[in-house]
């Protein structure tokens, strides 16, 4: 089968590559680009561990072919820290609020939350829960993930963070 030549921008860096059409974006990122932050969880489109940001959309990269990303700009967890290497507001929120236990879902959670906060800078708890409904976490019960996103929103907005009542 003919390989396709694709040009993508990944975490701000221009990348050109040859990919077989059946190569899924998650495999392209992990195996050809050595960006192993995005995870394969369920491999069926349910769990969201493979979520990356692509052209201002949260995308499940195990449900997308790399050829479909030709011309796109992609952000993975490797590209979300601040330019000086310090943690982004979301990364800091997940750390401060203990928004992870095993951490497997975290890259997908953070990429999804990143887009959610771009679209809804000051979300309610309900909006957060609806907004991350495509990302499954089997450890935390989501309470601290919600708090982590609220923490990040407050930090980005420069407003005081008030921990939600449990």
């Amino acid at each position, binding site marked *: 089968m003919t390989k396709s030549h694709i040009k993508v921008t990944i975490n701000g860096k221009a990348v050109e590559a040859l990919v077989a059409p*059946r190569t899924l974006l998650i495999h392209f990122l992990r195996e050809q680009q050595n960006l192993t932050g995005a995870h394969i969880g369920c491999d069926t*489109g349910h769990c969201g561990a493979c979520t990356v940001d692509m052209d201002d*959309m949260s*995308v499940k990269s195990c449900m997308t*072919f790399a*050829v*479909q990303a030709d011309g796109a700009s992609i952000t993975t967890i490797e590209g979300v820290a601040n330019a000086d290497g310090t943690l982004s507001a979301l990364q800091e929120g997940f750390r401060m609020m203990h928004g992870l236990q095993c951490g497997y879902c975290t890259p997908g959670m953070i990429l999804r939350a990143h887009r959610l906060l771009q679209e809804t800078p000051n979300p309610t708890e309900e909006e957060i829960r609806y907004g991350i409904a*495509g990302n499954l976490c089997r450890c935390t019960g989501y309470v601290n993930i919600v708090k982590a996103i609220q923490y990040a929103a407050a930090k980005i907005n420069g407003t005081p963070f008030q921990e939600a009542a449990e």
Partner: protein
Amino acid sequence: MIPGTFEYHRPTTVESAVALLMQLGEDARPLAGGHSLIPLMKTRLAAPEHLVDLAAIEGLRRIEVVGDDVIIGAMTTQHSVIASALLAELVPILRETALVIADPQIRYKGTIGGNCANGDPGNDMPALMQCLGASYQLTGTGGSRQVPARDFYLGAYETALEPGEIVTEIRIPVPPAGHGYGYEKLKRKVGDYATAAAAVVITMAGGTCISASIGLTNVSETPLWASDSAGILVGSTLDAATVNAAVAAAEAITNPASDMRGPSEYRTKMAGIMLRRALDRARARATV
């Protein structure tokens, strides 16, 4: 899970897309959002030799009013449907329905045309399109034709699409100002297809229901337009006895499979409950 091998095509016009599909025949499948097709390819339940990606065809992503109709390009995503102020104002039941489809990631990629054209009885838009009296523009190498959503679905994954044809746009007559609407969906969890769902659009005048239309999702091989049920409502004040009769008429046309979502009898009953709830909300929203 890795799909089988295929050739990838990315035409930039409808004409070249349908020419490719016609030429490649049964070995080719059109690719829209891909979130129904790609999972099937990963499990090898589908193994097309060619994918014709419709993503680069600019003209298929648009939402506009033409005369008394809203036209939605087939490649318009569920996310765009939800974000559209125009649709929220003119046909708000579209937004209400799109909000209960799948999850955020899938709504960014999933398209209204794919949802309507796939023929999966679990898809939510088909019954809504039947409820709204929408029609689909099907385009092939010989040109375009309009097919009403109420005539489009022939069986599970069987539609009126001829070889080489694709759905290019959806035409929805704008419901009257002041209409009431509701889409109610019972599902086991976020992202699941409906155990049963109901779409209702009504108009009221002086406390009397003067028009009604009902669509039912995932309780038969095809979406169902419950015209007898809706007919019972028209001319009534939506009193309890009339609503009970309409619900019974809707339940009577369902034929759901017994599956992991529940036994057939349960799913039929849930279709009735979803209809009641959708009707309650439609009545509360209608200008009387």
